[in-house]
């Protein structure tokens, strides 16, 4: 997984749970990277998953909830880093629609060894309903849900998001239907 996600994850913990809690997580989970992430590096997603489990145990909130929250936070970080792309759109639906063809295509070109999730997207004729079929090697459908929510929040749209997990894949396959309301 790309370092930008890990850097954002560290900031998310520091901002929402404090620096002490971050140090506590390092002690508790013993990540190989010691949380010293760079945006251009690649790291194991298990470092995030282990932290999420400890965070859930300590806070009493489910891993899914925390992951969705992190997804919303991650979108804001990505939006700051890729401001030009975000500014091209004034609505969440066309932005999400362009994600696969523009952002993921460029990322795949730059980092050939990366394994990004893919989205099979379909926009209805009216342009107000988008279906996104999330497919990934990692069970990060919650993170995708958080990112979608973060995108809608960023543009200030009112959208209804319906998530349908594809059994028995447990978070690696999910269909999101986003409708303008």
């Amino acid at each position: 997984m790309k370092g930008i996600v890990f850097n954002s994850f560290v900031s998310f913990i520091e901002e929402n749970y404090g620096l002490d809690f971050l140090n506590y997580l390092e002690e508790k989970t013993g990540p190989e990277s010691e949380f010293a992430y760079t945006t251009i590096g690649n790291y194991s997603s298990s470092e995030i998953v282990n932290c999420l489990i400890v965070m859930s145990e300590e806070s009493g909130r489910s891993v899914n909830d925390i992951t969705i929250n992190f997804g919303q936070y991650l979108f804001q970080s990505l939006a700051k880093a890729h401001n030009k792309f975000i500014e091209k759109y004034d609505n969440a639906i066309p932005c999400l629609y362009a994600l696969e063809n523009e952002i993921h295509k460029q990322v795949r070109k730059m980092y050939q060894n990366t394994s990004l999730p893919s989205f099979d997207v379909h926009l209805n004729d009216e342009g107000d309903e988008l279906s996104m079929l999330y497919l990934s090697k990692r069970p990060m459908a919650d993170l995708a849900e958080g990112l979608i929510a973060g995108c809608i929040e960023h543009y200030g749209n009112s959208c209804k998001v319906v998530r349908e997990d594809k059994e028995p894949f447990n978070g690696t396959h999910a269909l999101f239907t986003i409708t303008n309301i």
Partner: protein
Amino acid sequence: MNDIASLEKKIAREIKARQEAESILESLSEELYESSLLIEKTEIKLKYALDNILDGIVVIDSYFTVSLINNQFNSIYFNSTLDLAQGDNVEEHLKDIVNNPSFPKQSNVSEQATFEIQLDASRWILCKINKTPDDLWIILVNDITWRKNAELEKSKLSKKLYQSQKQEAIGRMASVIAHDFNNILGAINGFANFLKEDLETNSELQSFSLKILSAVDRGKKIIQNLSEFNYQKISEQSSILILEVIEESIEIVQNTINQKIQFNSPDYLGKILIDGNKTQLIRLFTNLLTNSRDACHDKNAQIIINLDAHKEYTPDVNLLSKKVFKNAKNISATSAGVSKLPAGCITISIQDNGCGMSQETLDKAFEPYFTTKDKGSGTGLGMYSVFETVSQHESNITILSTPNLGTYCEVSFPIIASEVKYLPTEKTSNTPPHSNEILLVDDDQNHLEYLSTLVMRMGFKPIAHSSSYEGLKALMKSPNTWKCIISDYMMPGIKGTDILDYLRKGNTTIPFILCTGYITSEKVKALADVENVHLLEKPIDTNRLRELLESIN
């Protein structure tokens, strides 16, 4: 953990991350360097490849500057007067291309265009433009000057061929008119002369006959002018190599067509001679070949010419149909000329895989002014001229055609078998017997009657034949019994000169009077100095003929 300890840990993480980033960047920069070397090598190879292709290529970016260009482009487009290079703006230098109405300009879409540009009076190029969705223009140019010149040449040759066919048709019409009017004037002149002689001197009726004779004189001058204009069209036959005729015809037509002409001729036929008029025969074959050309619209169309010799040959439509079109249905056929060829003949066949013709079209094929070509592109006289030539050469033409399968056309000529054309005659005395009979041969009935009357008035016995064939037969039957022979020159089939040839081959010196409107023809002029041969220009001057007959007597 106290705050300072926490912060120290954070700083330690940041320092570690920075060191790691530096190490990654160092490794990436090495990778980048290696990649740039690879790109440089690939660029050199690409440039080498581009400089060695025949097309000129230039790639223009969205700022209208050159991203990529090969040497060939500069050579083709600028004729090596300017070297456009990477980074140059093209709006000024390539304005002929970018300002062309077909040049694709819509942003963010993929488009293609192809157009031709005339760069100057003598240079043409073909441009193929491929515009990518991210606004790159890939422009390929080819020098098509040679193709344009060939097209121009082809168009000029087609026009020339068409003009010459038209002129030939007009000439032929003039020739026919002159010949027929000469005969009519001859009869009027002759009978008016009889009136002048028989009527009372200075009477009103005699003055009318003089007016008729004066009008005939004026008509005679007009016809003379017409004949002089057209005399070169008159058929002069000689021994010719048929292979030369076919090869020259192909050479003429080849420049005006795209189709392949395949010519098959066995070597032993290279020396075959036929009796004919080379100009007319070349015109016959160019007419047939251009018809084949016009019938073939497909680029894969083919015209096949075969040469074959036969001991005996009678063109048979049924046999030919089976041989040429196998089991095809709707085979149409027509033929003209002699139905059976003499022993020893040569056949030239022309076959195309064009649109073919229906029976209805073939039935009219030899009619003058009948054409299936577009208005303005066909005179309707091409096949009529073929028909005339075939008739004059005692040959045969047979045409078979099937719509959408093509047309097969076969022309057969007698081969010159020996030096003696007619049956040998017994050697006779040079002095004709004291006969009172004069053989008259003329295809014009009125003129023949006039000659008969004149001959009778002078005390001779006329034996008149309006068919030259019948006249020749009468001569062959008894070659030495004539006081004199008076013959028209231009007659269908056997001409007056053929009768004279027969007569002289038998070593007889019977006086021969040749009446002709074609006094300027080389063949006729050559007879002027031959012993016992007298030329009389049509319409005939009665007094001159009378003088001649008196001198013979």
